[in-house]
Structures are given as structure tokens and as C-alpha cells.
């Protein structure tokens, strides 16, 4: 990786963090638990890296590590989204 692409990635990091802070500081306390489990599912984005790591044809140590990562990341992603959806569907306004 050269210095230039590192700088680009740092820009992405800094700007994304600002967006994150802006968006999340407005979330009302009622939604904090679903926010946390939803963002927990998003942190499973490592699944993208896991797929690449599990991709080669030869059965190397590196590939096995990738498969293990893939399993855990999938659990994280699927479980996180499903439980968040389950919670959010319970939130109802007063009927009348």
C-alpha cells in the first residue's frame, strides 16, 4: 500500500466517523437497544474480508482461518439483523 492510498483511506475513516457521530447523537433513547444490535450486525461487515480469505482453492491455514471468520461473521450479521427486526416490530404507537 502506498502513502497515497493510505491517505485516501484515512479520509474515508475520518469523514465516515463524522457522519456516524452526527447520525447517532440524534437517536432517541427508546431506540438505543435496537440501534446497538443493528450496528452490531453492521460490524459483521468483516464478512466481506472473510469471504475473500476463505476463497482460495487450496486448503491452507489461511483459508481455514477465513472459513472460521466467515462462520462467526455470518452469525453476527444474520443474528444481529433478525433480532433487531424482532425488537422493532414490537415498537407500537398508542392505538386509537
Amino acid at each position, binding site marked *: *500500500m502506498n502513502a497515497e492510498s*493510505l491517505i485516501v*483511506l484515512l479520509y474515508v475513516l475520518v469523514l*465516515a*466517523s463524522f457522519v*456516524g457521530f452526527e447520525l*447517532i*447523537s440524534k*437517536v432517541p*433513547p*427508546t*431506540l*438505543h*437497544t435496537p*440501534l*446497538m444490535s*443493528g*450496528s*452490531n*450486525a*453492521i*460490524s*459483521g*461487515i*468483516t*464478512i*466481506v*474480508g472473510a*469471504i475473500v*480469505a476463505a*476463497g*482460495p*482453492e487450496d486448503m*491452507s*491455514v*489461511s483459508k481455514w*482461518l*477465513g472459513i*472460521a*471468520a*466467515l462462520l*462467526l*461473521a*455470518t*452469525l*453476527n*450479521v444474520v*443474528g*444481529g*439483523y*433478525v*433480532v433487531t*427486526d424482532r*425488537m*422493532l*416490530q414490537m*415498537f*407500537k*404507537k398508542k*392505538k386509537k
Partner: protein
Amino acid sequence: MERDLIIKIAYLIASVLFIVGIKMLGKTSTARRGNFISAVAMLIAILVTLLDRQVLSFTEIFVTILVGSVIGTVIAQRVEMTSMPEMVAIFNGFGGAASVLVATSEYWRMAHDAGYSMEMVVGVTIIISVIIGCVTLTGSLVAFGKLKGLINGRAIMFTGQHALNAILFLGALALSVLVVLEPNVELWMMGVLLISLLLGVLVVIPIGGADMPVVISLLNSYSGIAACATGFVLNNQVLIIAGALVGASGIILTQIMCKAMNRSLVNVLLGGFGQTSSGATAEGGEEIVVKEVGVEETAMLFDSASSVIIVPGYGMAVAQAQHIVRELSDMLERRGTSVKFAIHPVAGRMPGHMNVLLAEANVPYDKLIEMDQINDEFANTDIALIIGANDVVNPAARTNPGSPIYGMPVLNADKARTVIVCKRGMSAGYAGIENELFGYPNCLMLFGDAKSSMTKVVGELKELMPA
């Protein structure tokens, strides 16, 4: 080249959808759709990654994803809402572990290329990803164990603890330098992994059960930062963006939790709260004299009240009393009594936990009022019903500078004309502190299991006001 371009564009779309999804997650009316959009973003990211040139064999990938999805769905469908903190904790751990594994896998692949010399940047990002990921993994497992009661929830302290942590951290840094200098010696990497895993355990054990909401929020943030670092390792922007969003979210929730408990993050992380405090309360000396009340009398009080604020705590959820409490609230409302729920930010075991527990019991979310908005209303309220909560209504936080929780924002339930506390016995709260509210002249204690007491009160009320 074309294929790479498609992948890059798809990642960009996914990043935008993640941001839109989180934005929509911030409003109750759009939250469910927001979560769906963020799931679509994830699906796009996963599908295009399968196009990657390095992905050549698909069978293992599909089988693994299938197995993971089935297990994940089953866990997510079955988990009790009271157990949400444990579930989030363990999933944080999985996320951290996945980041470590990806970074280690990348390291292994590179280190086994003959004559490889590691670039500084790649080395540093791999190390960051590994250290943060490992701490997230074992820290989350300890938090999970504490929340589930598998490990003693109290703070575990020993002399030289902080010094030991510092030495281990420096050791991990020293080994990290060796990893970068001699990437083909796997021993160095193993050392970094082991020490980081140990550090994760050591940083969470001194933190007491009452501080778990802070710890879970912080670990949530770490799992995002670990994903972010992995993004640097793989030169992948979508990982960095998604990781940064999660990192920011965790940090904000951590700050909110710390503020709600009037603690600094450093103070929480150094740990030991809830142990030292037991000595401080003994100095008060005065025995608290309480007034007891029975279910019939409680029902009569409710019968004549025109405004009620219910202060629920985690104890209510443990007793599974939220459904009967909702029934009580419906019943009072039908006869024109105003009923509101006052929610303290740390009610429950994670940020916003109480809201979810009440939503599950069909309490509409617009009846749940935040602390700052409701605190002035207690003075004009006939009855404050405190059920399963303790520390969050302790007036000592306002009045007694000697109290360990002095300065913590609390619900002013003591200002109500009558306070009814539904509680199992006189034991102290989660923070291990006596509550002087129980001795106040306007405070009545309704001893017993929350669910059975409330069921009896509702029964009595039905007799008092038929139809």
C-alpha cells in the same frame, strides 16, 4: 478490470445504504425499514464479494454461510428480551473474532510468500486489527459470563492489576514490532494473539455488574473499530465506513451511559465500583424505618389517584411483571387516570433496554418518558409506583454528598405525593447502596414478588371498579 469496477461501485452503494439505514434507525416510525435497508446493504456487499478474483471455490463458502445463517436466526428468534445484553455481548465477541481471523489469515498468506518483507502500514494495521479484535472477543465473553451469572458479577480486583495490564500491553507492542520486522516468524504473531486475548479478560473482570451497560457499549464500539482496521488491512472502503459508523455509535452510547451514572469512562474502566461503596454507606449509621403497605390498601390508593407515574427497573423484568404492569396501566387509563412510564437511561442492563422490555409487553412507546422530560412532573403526581428499580430513584444522589452515587442524575420519584415501592425485600440495589427514599414519610413499601403483588393489586382494583 471491469469486474473490479463493478465490485467497487457496489461497495459504494452498500456504504450509502448503510448510512441511510442508520439514519432511518434513528426514528421510531422508520426504524424497521432502516434496519431492512442496512441488511440489504450487507447482502449487496456479500454478493459482489463473491465476484472477487480471489474467490475461487464456493462450496465451503456457501455451506459456512448457510450454517451460520441458520444458527444465527435460531438464536435471534429464541432469545428472551431480558437476555438482549448477553446476546449483543456475545455477538460483539463474534464480530471481533471475525476481524482477528481475517487479519491473521491475511498475515499468514503474506508471511508464507517466500522472501516477503512486510510493509510498515500493512503490518501496523494487521496488528491493530488483531489487538482490538482479541480484546473485543475475550472481553465480550467475560461480559457475557457476568451478565448470565456464569462468572461472579462483582468486580474482581487484585493488587498490581493495572501494572500487570500495562506490562502486558507493552509486551504486545514489543512483539508487534517483531511481527513487522520478521513477518515470517509466526511465534511473534502467536504471542501478540495470546497476550491480547489475555488483556481482554483482564480489562473486563475488574468492572462490576452495574457498569455492564457501559462495557457492552464500549465493546460494541471496539467491534466496529476492529472491522475498520481490517478495512485498512484489505484496502477496502466499505469495511472502513461501516466500521466507523459502528465505532461512532458505540462511543456515543458509552458516553450517554457514563453521563447517566455520573462516572467518567476512566473511572468505569479502572473498575471496582460497588465494592468500595459498601463501606461508605455503613457510615450513615441510622437505621431506615419503613412503612409497609398491603395490596388492598395499594389498590385503594390507585382507585383515588388521578395521576400515576410508573418507574420500572430491571427487577420488574426479572419478575416477568411487565405484562401485569401494562394491564394495571390500561385499567387505570380506562377510568381516566393519567399513567406514564418514567425511564431512566440506565434502567435495565443496556442502553434503551427498558423500552424494549415494555414494548414487548405492548406498552406504546409514546407513554415512555425520558428522565429529563418527566422529572418536573413528579411533584404534581399522586402516585409514583417504583417497581423493581432502586438506585435510579435514590434521592441521596441529589442530597447526600457522602453517597457513592452523589451527582448521578436520578428520577425525582420522591417528590410525588405518595411513593409506592414494590420490592422483594430490603436488600440494596445493584450498586450495593442503601436507599434513603424508603424511609421517607410519603413512601410506602409493598413487599413481595413484583408479579404476584401486581396481580393481586389488579384483582383488588377490579373489585373496586367493576367494568
